[in-house]
């Protein structure tokens, strides 16, 4: 008889599904199966069991090979690196729990670091736009229970947030949406005919990078004003149709992703998407929501918000918190050679930063905290593997709609492995010792 753990929270994407069931071996040590998860979530749980998993810190030698070191040595290396740095960059903070983020914040304050999270390459544009114009939003249950108009703009949940449509946005039967998908009109805006677009009632296949123009045209259409024949590759009739569809809904929602935040215009694209949503609230009820990527990037912004007042790009080097994306953002700092050491936790910039930034990391004293081998560990001087949050240690995470859920521990980590939080606490203690000495 295997043992089943229920209500397990998936530590992959911002959808933060909390209905997984995991079956364990009799002794509770091995994960056998993962139920209810998407393919990515299941892969994450099962990979934690991989036989070739690295379980001890390692340090790169002069000749490029790795040598195992103890956690104490890794703590010492990290603490000394911080103590000797004038401006360390502490990056990541998204695939970890709020407990680790909290300790990391204190550490960042003590060592005078610049702290940035994965929003800087994801929804940083959104965070800036919200500072410009605000954001009318809601929790995902409001969508499930009320929304009858659902727009996916520059996002592809069929691939990136695989259970989003079935749990929250398209298929579920909610309180006022008893017919599920039949209660809803679905619009997808994407330059590709994505698997999400293929299920939509309306697909606007706009020209890549013309989001601002199209959003602006929708605002024009709301007001019944004249449009050019074609905007962003979309005929005006289609634009009027979509505008009317949204206005006529009882509850409209726009989900948006990297298609908008990564394309030129960036935060301005989001500004106007939010303006569209504000407009809609004069006719009906409407909300807009970023499809946050990492399962707890949202939490990172929350923790820094209450500790420092800013959701990303937090510069603590002067002893108080400053914020100026473009200046205090990870990629700008790296590319301008403004930081003298690099620390990564809960992210993989080696894989997801432009190569020009990754090259800079490779030339810095650096530590990477990550359960996996990644392109980041490949360019760092010390790699510290840790327990998987949400699998081997619990802790708080914030869903894309800011709902905090406590992730669960399902199995023990391999013997002797530390968690993010434990490792950071040791580093903090060691830094304080060094500073006092």
């Amino acid at each position, binding site marked *: 008889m295997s043992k089943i753990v*229920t*209500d397990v*929270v998936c530590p992959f994407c911002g959808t933060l599904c*909390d*209905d997984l069931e995991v079956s364990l071996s009799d002794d509770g040590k091995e994960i056998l199966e993962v139920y209810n998860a998407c393919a990515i979530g299941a892969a994450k749980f099962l990979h934690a069991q991989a036989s070739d998993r690295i379980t001890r810190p390692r340090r790169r030698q002069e000749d490029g090979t790795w040598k195992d070191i103890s956690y104490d040595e890794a703590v010492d290396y990290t603490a000394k690196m911080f103590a000797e740095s004038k401006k360390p960059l502490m990056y990541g903070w998204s695939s970890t729990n*709020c*407990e680790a983020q*909290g300790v990391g914040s*204190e550490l960042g*304050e003590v060592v005078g670091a610049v702290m940035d999270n994965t929003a800087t390459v994801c929804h940083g544009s959104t*965070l800036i736009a*919200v*500072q*410009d*114009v*605000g*954001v*009318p*939003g*809601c*929790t995902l*249950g*409001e969508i*499930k229970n*009320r929304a009858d108009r659902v727009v996916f703009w520059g996002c592809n949940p069929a691939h990136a947030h695989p259970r989003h449509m079935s*749990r929250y946005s398209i298929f579920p*039967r*909610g*309180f006022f949406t008893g017919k599920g998908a039949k209660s809803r009109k679905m619009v997808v805006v994407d330059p590709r005919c994505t698997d999400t677009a293929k299920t939509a009632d309306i697909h606007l296949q706009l020209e890549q990078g013309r989001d601002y123009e199209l959003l602006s045209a929708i605002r024009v259409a709301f007001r019944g004003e004249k449009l050019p024949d074609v905007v962003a590759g979309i005929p005006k009739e289609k634009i009027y149709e979509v505008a009317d569809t949204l206005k006529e809904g*009882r*509850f409209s929602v726009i989900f948006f992703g990297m298609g908008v935040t990564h394309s030129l215009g960036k935060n301005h694209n989001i500004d106007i998407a939010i303006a569209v949503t504000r407009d809609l*609230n004069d006719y*009906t*009820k409407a*909300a807009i929501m970023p499809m946050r990527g990492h399962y707890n990037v949202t939490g990172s*912004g*929350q*923790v820094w*918000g*209450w*500790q*420092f*007042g*800013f*959701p990303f790009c937090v510069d*603590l080097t*002067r*002893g*108080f*918190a*400053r*914020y100026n994306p473009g200046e205090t953002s990870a990629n700008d700092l790296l590319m301008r050679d403004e930081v003298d050491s690099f620390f990564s936790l809960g992210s993989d910039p080696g894989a997801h930063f432009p190569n020009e930034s990754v090259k800079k990391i490779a030339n810095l004293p650096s530590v990477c905290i990550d359960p996996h081998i990644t392109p980041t560990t490949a360019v760092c001087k010390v790699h510290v593997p840790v327990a998987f949050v949400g699998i081997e240690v619990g*802790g*708080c995470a*914030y869903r894309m709609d*800011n*709902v*905090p*859920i*406590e992730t669960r521990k399902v199995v023990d980590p391999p013997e002797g492995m530390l968690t993010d939080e434990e490792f950071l606490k040791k580093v903090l203690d060691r830094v304080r010792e060094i500073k006092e000495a």
Partner: protein
Amino acid sequence: MAEFLVKNGFVYDPVLGINGDMVDVAVRNGKMVDASDVGTNATVIDAKGMTVMAAGVDIHAHIAGPKVNVGRNFRPEDKLFNATPGKGVMRMGGGHSVPTVLRTAYTYAKMGYGFALEAAMPPLLARHTHEEMRDTPIIDEGALPVFGNNWFVLEYLKNNEIENTAAYIAWLLRMTKGFGIKNVNPGGTEAWGWGLNCETIHDVVPYFDITPAQIIKGLIEANEYLGLPHCMHMHGNSLGQPGNYGITLETLKLAEGYKPKGDFGRDQVLHNTHLQFHSYGGESYTSKGFASASKEIMNYVNSVDNITFDTGIVTLDETTTMTADGPFEHHLSHMNNLKWVNSDVELETAAGIVPFIYGKNTFIAVAQWAVGVELALMAKDPMRCFITTDAPNAGPLYRYPRVWKWLMSLKARDALLEDAKYGDKVRNACYIGELDKEISLYELAMMTRAGCAKALGLSHMFGSLKPGLEGDVVVYPYNPETADDPELIEQAFGNAHTLIKGGEQIVKDGEIVSNGNKRTFWVNCKTNENAQVQHDISEKFKKYYTVTENNYGVSAHHYTPNPYVIEVDATK
């Protein structure tokens, strides 16, 4: 534990009837004791020429949780030119109207406060509120979950099922580790799920077919059925609308006939928060169209004994408004065209956040200021009137001492009206010009601690220096015998000389020297098994929530590492 003897100060303690007498005050083992009960090793604090009170108790402020953090994160400008580095035991801080949690704690400590109640906690997001409270050092805190638009409550009260409502409330307080019942724009926030509102207490809530009046009465009854420490905490319909005082009077009158139950010593069944926003006459915000209705409201409040209120006094600052009254914030964003955040929470509530500038040179902001001040000056019973700014809605937290200055000094009020562009028009439209009352320190102690503690059901712990209560003492560098410049009030009450909290010295010679031993207060209310409510809860989680029932409750170890649990037995 440490012992303290505070000597030679002018002591104000309305509970003990001490009105400025020079009395020695002592703390031992974390509690107040008789001055003769401390040993010779006690740390002696010489309060000569200073004012001594029990630590302050804040009954209503927005200081921790999701909407507060929205305010921080979406207003980088709120941190401009006011960031402070860490120093000694203090960490770095920042923020003017929505300070970081660290600065919130230091601000309270410097104003001599020991307890604060976070005024609105969305149940589904309770973990967030608790994480922020946990990271706010020094002060004890509790948080009120919001109930007035909760689908369970609407469905039970539609059928007048008080017992089921009460059982559900007790369950939710346990799940969220909440302190009591908050009721914000009853029905209106649910209507806002469709972009609508309930503007009077008789507007029917769409689909749910219940009126705000039914919700208000039902929540009072459920509160007293359970006998909770605090009463139903009310933010009524049509906040901020000219002419809303009639709706407010109707709301207050719903409490008639109800008496407090339970063992916590409070006298009220309804606390109307930020009453200022609910006391407007007239029909517009213009100097010709607006009128204060503070007198009409206070005539009623003074005539009954089962209602308390806090003021929500406007401080004439740039600030950040935030409330679970979603439709109001939408309305506000259309008035000032500044950025607007809305955040609806499934099955439960909503929130809106909009920056706001109360300009001293506008008529309406100064008129709002006047209305709030009038309420406090007209209150016959200072044990039922509490001074707040509904922080940060009417003004930032750190402005409390400025508000006290206005209440304690006619000269300060006259100076403000003199200086304001439309001061004369405000005198015409409001009652402020007729009021020459100045609040005494004895009354101030009631309005900022003794009365608040009693209304919260915490008079056995806070609000007085009586032996046996918590060892929470503040010394303000204010000499009531010599001070004549009202500016001294603002200076002194924002810069406590000494704060002892739970028997530990937090502020010493005006400097913060300890992060104390912060506790999270919540109410564990036991009720009889209720199969119906348990069934309804399971059904709602299966069908309508987006988290599972098992992932809803706030666990103790991480979110409330240092709890103070108030046990209530409602099984009989």
